[in-house]
């Protein structure tokens, strides 16, 4: 890609999250715990044209994402790709992927679900739909309506 076509500049080291569902970049930042108080440089591009329609892109400088963070991103951006950048080159590239279950990542929306009490268990959801993503609590069987609001 020519430099003049880039909406946001290349980064030397860090992570580029590409193919985020258009409009969900802010949710991705929330999941990553990136806020005003974060010290590293973050660039966001929203509603960028691509071959597959509109998308969002997030570039995080000097931070390589761990797999647990990647799983969380899949909850709001199931088609996102993660590019680990080292010295301007893509060192690793993979697509976010959720398994059959989401464990310990989302809080159940039901206040009286046993998983929200003081028991030694992690929250556990079964994935019942991929597009749009739908999950169901293993314990109380409730489906949270806004998954991104429930991420732990």
């Amino acid at each position, binding site marked *: 890609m020519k430099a003049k076509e880039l909406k946001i500049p290349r980064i030397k080291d860090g992570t580029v999250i590409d193919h985020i569902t258009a409009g969900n970049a802010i949710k991705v930042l929330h999941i990553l715990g990136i806020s005003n108080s974060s010290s590293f440089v973050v660039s966001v591009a929203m509603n960028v044209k691509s071959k597959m329609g509109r998308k969002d892109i997030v570039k995080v400088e000097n931070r390589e994402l761990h797999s647990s963070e990647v799983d969380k991103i899949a909850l709001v951006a199931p088609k996102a790709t993660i590019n680990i950048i080292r010295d301007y080159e893509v060192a690793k590239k993979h697509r976010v992927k959720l398994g059959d279950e989401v464990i310990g990542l989302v809080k159940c929306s039901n206040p*009286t*679900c046993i998983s929200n009490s003081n028991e030694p268990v992690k929250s556990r959801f079964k994935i019942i739909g991929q597009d749009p993503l739908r999950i169901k609590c293993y314990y109380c069987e409730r489906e949270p309506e806004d998954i991104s609001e429930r991420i732990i």
Partner: protein
Amino acid sequence: MKFKGKDVISIKDFSKKEINYILNYAKEMIPYAKGEKYAGILKGKVISSLFFEPSTRTRLSFESAMNRLGGRVIGFADPSETSQKKGESLSDTIRMANAYSDAIVIRHPQEGAARLAAEFADIPVLNAGDGAGHHPTQCLLDLFTILTEKKKIGKNKIVLLGDLKYGRTVHSLAYALSLYGAELTFVSPSILKMPKEVVEECKELSAEPIQTSSLEKAIKDADVLYVTRIQKERFPDAEEYNRVVGSYKIDNELLTNAKKDLIIMHPLPRVTEIDPEVDSTPHAIYFKQAFNGVPVRMALLSLVMGEKI
């Protein structure tokens, strides 16, 4: 068909074939449940009966079922007498019951409690109601009642009435009746309608439930009227409860429009939704339904502990 060691958490954990097997086996249990015959197949076995919420029928019928089969019951009906009051977790309580008995019967106010208990127990866990969640043994005894009274479950016109939003029995029952192809009508005040997910599940099983607030119309050609109490304890605020309590009342005048062989069921306790004058009519099946909890729970205890008559 393997039942030994199986947990009974939700009716959805069972196939139609398995449900039929349990119901047929429960029929065999009737003379034992009445004390006319005795078979001490569970002699030497112990169940833990852990009731974290009040109960009359479920607890007593489980205890009766175990005693009728020669087994013993330990447990509590009031959690304030246990270490839960000192802050002990449910999972630790389950670990103890697991060490002391051969099966656990649990009622708990929180949804998912029985599923969690099953994770911490090696022995079978039978869900006796988890908050607004599941009550599979009630569902089985309801199916058993319809089967014994009507000689079939499917092809009946069945009206579910009352609190369809918070009522755990009607959620499981709507699913199970759809599995059998019953014709369903849901009658409730608009704020207590059957949850969307339950209606969707029924539709996935090819049922086409009708939803209405008019009982008079629905009762005309019904074969079964399943009445539920509007449960004060499940309402988030008293004002909402006061708006809908007393919405429906079954009395003899209403029943003049019903079929002669209509049966009226209720998981009990009832408050004002069925007038006591109905009790003496042939429509009233609810006390017989409550008895049916014993043979059905006998069948389940016998099967999950692997000791058959």
